[in-house]
């Protein structure tokens, strides 16, 4: 599905073109900010300082980054199998539900050392199971996965509302939230971890899930490019007929890819439910699943690219929030517009600039070849 250019060198394809896309988005954003009478340079400054300029801001940025890494990886692994998993949002939601249900059940009887890994596994399994249903429908019943995963987002959302309002709500409370988990079920915050080492940093929602996210990146890289299962996934994604010829069963491969994809999306629940809120609540996925599509596109479906793209989106989210706070005329909605523009240019229009860059590169390399010829 991703159509990497075959004529351009890698550094242009994965480095320069995404950069051009972001710059184009910022240019249009700048024009809009100019039109409402604010200074775009100043706005960029506020965003950057808000996201990277002080400890708490960095903490928030990395906390958002963690979510984007999970959902970006989830979209990427499905992409490699030629599947468009739009259901990251629902899979993250159900993953969080899994972790929450397990912790609500077990937080009084098990120690941290068991609670936390088991909670993480449950989140992954729930997310994977939620993805497995559309995967089964695609692989064995021919229902298109784009349609079914979108529908499963709505089902997940409805299911959560039902459970939170009718079943899991803490008795005697108005807002639909579960009770807070006991302390052993909390993932350590970054500021807590640093405090154990004797370093004092500001409080922020950043927690140890980030480490797990980075491990997932490495793990997925190994899985996709260094194992026969990843080979099967890529074969099916690139050329299903050749995969069949090679004795690979596309249906099974689709199941496998979506299972891994759902599990990765489910880990958003680990960050949110186990790491930050310490209870089950509504809408903690906040669109991370959808943004994951742009992250994956921008990162060219490669874990390293996804980490970089996630950082960028982390900066946009955190910096955007600061911007809305600092400049009254730039409202929250306008910040969403800016984020939307970045998603538009680096996601939907990811290949818009490719022909121009190819043309320029062609001119450049020709001239270089000519001058080399002359020199010879």
């Amino acid at each position: 599905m991703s159509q990497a250019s075959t004529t351009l060198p890698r550094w242009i394809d994965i480095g320069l073109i995404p950069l051009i896309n972001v710059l184009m988005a910022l240019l249009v954003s700048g024009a809009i900010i100019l039109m409402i009478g604010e200074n775009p340079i100043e706005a960029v400054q506020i965003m950057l300082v808000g996201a990277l300029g002080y400890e708490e801001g960095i903490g928030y940025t990395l906390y958002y980054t963690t979510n984007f890494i999970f959902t970006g990886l989830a979209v990427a692994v499905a992409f490699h199998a030629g599947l468009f998993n739009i259901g990251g949002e629902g899979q993250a939601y159900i993953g969080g539900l899994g972790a929450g249900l397990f912790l609500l059940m077990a937080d009084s009887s098990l120690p941290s050392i068991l609670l936390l890994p088991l909670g993480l596994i449950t989140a992954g399994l729930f997310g994977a199971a939620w993805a497995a249903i559309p995967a089964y429908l695609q692989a064995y019943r021919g229902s298109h996965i784009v349609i079914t995963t979108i529908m499963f987002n709505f089902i997940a959302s409805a299911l959560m509302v039902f459970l939170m309002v009718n079943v899991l709500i803490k008795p005697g409370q108005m807002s639909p939230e579960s009770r807070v988990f006991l302390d052993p079920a909390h993932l350590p915050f970054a500021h807590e971890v640093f405090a154990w080492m004797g370093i004092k940093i500001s409080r922020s929602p950043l927690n140890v899930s980030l480490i797990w996210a980075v491990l997932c990146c490495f793990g997925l890289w190994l899985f996709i490019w260094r194992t026969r299962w990843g080979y099967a996934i890529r074969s099916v994604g690139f050329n299903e007929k050749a995969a069949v010829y090679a004795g690979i069963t596309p249906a099974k491969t689709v199941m496998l890819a979506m299972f891994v994809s759902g599990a990765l999306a489910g880990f958003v629940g680990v960050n949110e439910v186990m790491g930050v809120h310490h209870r089950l609540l509504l809408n903690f996925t906040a669109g991370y699943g959808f943004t994951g599509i742009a992250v994956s596109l921008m990162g060219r479906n490669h874990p390293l690219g996804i980490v970089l793209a996630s950082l960028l989106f982390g900066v946009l989210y955190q910096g955007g929030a600061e911007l809305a706070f600092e400049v009254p005329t730039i409202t929250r909605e306008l910040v969403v517009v800016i984020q939307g523009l970045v998603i538009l240019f680096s996601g939907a229009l990811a290949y818009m600039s490719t022909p121009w860059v190819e043309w320029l590169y062609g001119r450049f390399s020709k001239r270089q070849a000519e001058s080399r010829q002359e020199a010879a």
Partner: protein
Amino acid sequence: MVNPVTDRSTVLPQAEKASPAVLPAAIQLTRICKSFGPVRANHNVNITIAAGSIHGIIGENGAGKSTLMSILYGFYETDSGLIEVDGKPVTITSPQAAIAVGIGMVHQHFMLIDTFTVLENIILGAETSTLLNPGLAEARIKLQKLEDEYGLNVDLDAMIGELPVGEQQRVEILKALYRNARILILDEPTGVLTPQETTQLFRILRALNREGVTIVLITHKLKEIMAITDTVSVMRAGEMVAHRKTEATDAEELAELMVGRKVFGTIDRGTAACGEPLLKVTGLRVDSDGAVPLLDDISFQVRAGEIVGIAGVSGNGQSELLEVLSGIRGFDAGEIMLNGRQVSPDHLCDPKAVRGLKTAHVPEDRHRLGMVTRFSAQESSILGYQDSAVYNRGPFFDLSRIKAECRRLMDGFDVRPRHPEILSANMSGGNQQKLILAREIDKDPEILLVGQPTRGVDIGAIEFIHRQLVELRNRGTAVLMVSVELDEVMKLSDRILVMFGGRIVAEVAGPDADEKTLGLMMANAHGCTPAPADTHA
């Protein structure tokens, strides 16, 4: 190093053409250059095509023939150089511009709409009126005149999809003539035709030529060049290496010019030492969505140490047969005995299990089946064997082993460039095919299924591949080969089966085969109700 065959000094042919008045050349190209990134597809190409001649352009795949013609037809713009048509310099920026100066093109893959009639297809894009009907009536009159003039008989009201390939091609020619083309370019026109249809096409081309149409024939088949052209130009590696009058040259010289070295024509096959039948098919049937089955009542056997060739015009069930035998496709009736294992519609054998029976498969379509073009060469070199213990260490691939094995395959089959990391898509067709053959033959198969072993492969590589297949047979492998190239089938096969309409309509012993009878069988000219083929040769 001076290569004796790179002879550029030969006199351009147009001067010698006997014509009453000295006409300007139909097409004259001067120092045409075209690069794609670092690849020089055409470099300083000069060519003169005399008005009223039949001019052949010959070269291996990737020599730059198609690029040159695409430039003439307005698909690409030149980087530099001059194009003159009828003595006047022109710039051709689109196919419309090409038509406007009188250049028409018949593509290798027809640009026709199956559900339109011949008439509708011809006027498509050249409608003369807002309402369709007056234009159609006008066109009908003009076309009937053209048909009479050139002896091109096509039923204007027939549906394209129902016409045989040869007639579809005539529609393409009519389409060009209808647009007043005086120069007709044909790109590999005989690839899809039977020998009889080819003869007919050549008759039409000669008739057109008599009426003054200049014809440019692009092909890699030497025999056709010798049969029909007046003059011939040879391309190699993006450059024009020679121009010749056809009567003053021969196939050997042209082959040498194309490849750039001497080519050996024949293969010493030795004698077949047939053993036990390893592959036995009885009463095989594959149903289609329609009433006519894709494959019907197929029975034959292949013994150890023989090559059985399947001849036929493509689309007569050969592809389906290979797919069934290799486990990609199921079947509805009959029985297959594959290296001792019984396969029936209820007990199918998937591609993995087929490989387990020491049966290797070189598929017909290497881009769609044989390799993943976006994999590196080393990744493509394990396709089908990716689960083998050789390539895996625990849960992970043993990359250094995969690379070493790939390099070994590349060395053994002279695959170039020798870079296991190169993208499969960036290898030439011949090298892709050699890598696939290396992958399959290296596993020492007892049965080899091979489809179109040399389609789109350069002459030099063809010879190499043929020798590999014969060697494999001499080592006792049962080889089943499907090919649309009659020459190839006749050259390699110990026995030849002819397929038509999903059935085996004839069987001939290899040495007894001749092109004409085989061609007639392929077209099912005798209209024989396919008798159950005699499987015991």
